[in-house]
């Protein structure tokens, strides 16, 4: 089965396509038995990929948005305008007429680039069939390149928009590279038009020594869609990463965040918010690999789960032998809005060193009836009171989004997502 979809897509010409092809032929697709896919309905994803995805024809440079009327105003609504450059891709293909550019100054560049000039070779550690499928495909990738010592103040916004076209399969690819002591804020928005879409996304982030990156990943695709996403980050010495993932859309969404601390004294704050409702399935899979000494990582993921939905969090922490001074904290909190909602949480710590401080904690709770009554007793309608309590829970994550316009945009989306229809 692995090869049949792979045979139907337009294949890239670079070395990573060859690597991906070889890997896929040898290993195939993940299954429920794979630890990292335990909570993902991978059979449903594969059935959809196999049955519904027809041949994809990718023509580099074609203005694909002509076939589906998407306007800049639509992009404003779906992704927001956050004051910096906004590079828009439709089904993984660059849409220049929807993009806006702002000068970033010398040593900083963002835009679209074909697979001919891939920035670095694909890593096949903790690799899987979906990453391989993405890397196999010909693409125009989003690229952010900040050279050593350059600080960019404007937020760089990459929008990957999925539209329910005949081919269905969108494989956006993003590369973010910060040189030594470079600094930037990058927002990746995955959104889409209503309808059945299938997005298989791959993002690669490389942080040089002492680099600072704020990375926000917002997923608000169609509630009928499927979203499989991977973000792979390599952190250099003394680098700082602040990463926020917000998951609102898709019928089935999975985001795997794989971080390796390559250099000493690297720090990462990994935060996430997922809000499945209806029959949505949201799956967060984190792997934090402390491969160098004195790394500190703090994970905080929060789920707000309604109706018959299911949200899951798996946090895998690896502390390598011969490292010292690692500090790793992991927290997962869940708020269930209905008796039928379900939360799964699973810490997975693999510690091969002695001088280590690791904590993990998980909670699953419901809205506080006393607080709800208190607010209602002051005249605040039940729906509003409920929204206030949910917002109070979610704001701990949303408050860390930058700039303020992104906070506002996500705040409104969260509010719509958690409104009670009863």
């Amino acid at each position: 089965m692995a090869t049949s979809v792979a045979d139907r897509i337009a294949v890239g010409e670079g070395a990573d396509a060859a690597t991906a092809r070889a890997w896929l032929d040898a290993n195939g697709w993940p299954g429920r038995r794979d630890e990292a896919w335990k909570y993902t309905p991978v059979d449903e994803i594969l059935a959809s990929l196999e049955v519904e995805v027809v041949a994809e024809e990718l023509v580099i440079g074609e203005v694909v948005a002509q076939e589906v009327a998407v306007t800049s105003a639509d992009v404003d609504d779906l992704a927001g305008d956050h004051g910096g450059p906004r590079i828009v891709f439709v089904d993984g293909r660059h849409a220049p007429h929807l993009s806006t550019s702002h000068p970033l100054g010398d040593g900083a560049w963002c835009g679209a680039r074909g697979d001919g000039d891939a920035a670095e070779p694909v890593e096949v550690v903790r690799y899987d069939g979906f990453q391989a499928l993405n890397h196999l495909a010909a693409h125009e990738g989003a690229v952010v390149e900040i050279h050593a010592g350059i600080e960019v103040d404007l937020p760089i916004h990459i929008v990957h928009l999925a539209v329910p076209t005949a081919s269905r399969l969108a494989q956006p690819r993003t590369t973010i590279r910060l040189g030594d002591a470079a600094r930037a804020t990058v927002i990746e928005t995955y959104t889409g038009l209503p309808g059945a879409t299938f997005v298989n996304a791959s993002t690669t982030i490389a942080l040089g020594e002492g680099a600072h990156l704020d990375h926000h990943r917002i997923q608000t695709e169609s509630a009928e869609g499927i979203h499989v996403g991977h973000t792979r980050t390599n952190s250099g010495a003394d680098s700082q990463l602040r990463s926020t993932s917000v998951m609102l859309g898709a019928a089935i969404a999975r985001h795997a965040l794989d971080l390796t601390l390559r250099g000493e004294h690297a720090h990462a704050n990994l935060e996430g918010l997922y809000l499945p409702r209806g029959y949505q399935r949201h799956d967060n899979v984190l792997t934090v690999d402390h491969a160098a000494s004195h790394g500190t990582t703090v994970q905080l993921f929060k789920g707000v789960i309604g109706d018959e939905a299911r949200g899951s969090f798996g946090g895998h922490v690896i502390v390598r032998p011969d490292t010292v001074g690692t500090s790793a904290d992991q927290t997962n909190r869940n708020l269930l809005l209905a008796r039928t909602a379900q939360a799964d949480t699973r810490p997975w710590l693999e510690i091969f060193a002695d001088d280590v401080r690791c904590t993990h904690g998980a909670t699953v709770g419901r809205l506080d009836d006393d607080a709800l009554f208190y607010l209602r007793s002051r005249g605040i309608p039940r729906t509003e009171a409920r929204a206030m309590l949910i917002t109070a829970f979610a704001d701990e994550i949303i408050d860390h989004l930058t700039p303020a316009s992104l906070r506002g945009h996500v705040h409104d989306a969260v509010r719509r997502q958690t409104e009670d229809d009863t």
Partner: protein
Amino acid sequence: MLHIQGLTASIAGTTILRGLDLDIAPGEVHAVMGPNGAGKSTLSNVLTGREGYEVGGTVTYDGNDLLAMSPEERAVRGIFLAFQYPVEIPGVGNMYFLRTALNAVRHERGEDPLDAMTFLRVAKEQMAALDIDPAFLSRSVNSGFSGGEKKRNEVLQMTMLEPRLAILDETDSGLDIDALRVVADGVSRLRSPDRSMLIITHYPRLLDLVRPDRVHVLSAGRIIRSGDHTLADELEVDGYASTVAAAAS
């Protein structure tokens, strides 16, 4: 204004109120006193619409069936409960909360919502009168407040929302003498010919500062004795036991 007849309430199979009758006219201040377990908090919960009780009997408020209304409907129509244990709500700002509540009540009265600046001015005036630190507004609702701060926050809300019927559930409990005076002054300022109050308390000390028009003794889910404010003094001297025993014989 409030007419309670044959009110019964039970929770999880345990009957707490067993046919309570009480009438409160506009402008009157009534006190309900009673020993622990008499049903005092249940009475305030049932009047404000807390879920979880099996309720019987009738309660009419301004001629309308109070028991058929949701908690928020009762609130916007002018019923206010000062909680015995105000709830801590981390993450919800006190100012946002108060303004949302005030504007919900104003909406019901047909008044325009207050903008943030006007609200802030009004709130600060009232806070000064209640000796509340202005920094209070930027904190989460009741989060990390001391017992006295929580009770003063209740009186602040009551002052801002201008209820027509204020129910004070053990508002004096847990207060030192200075805080009690501040709270009592706040309550006294709210007395007016068209505002009624129901003060529920175990101890008569708040009643020394806010003289009620009527005092009722609640025991085992019923009002067993009523009188004027001198009844409170009598209870302070004799305790509840003799009144309860006299009613039983």
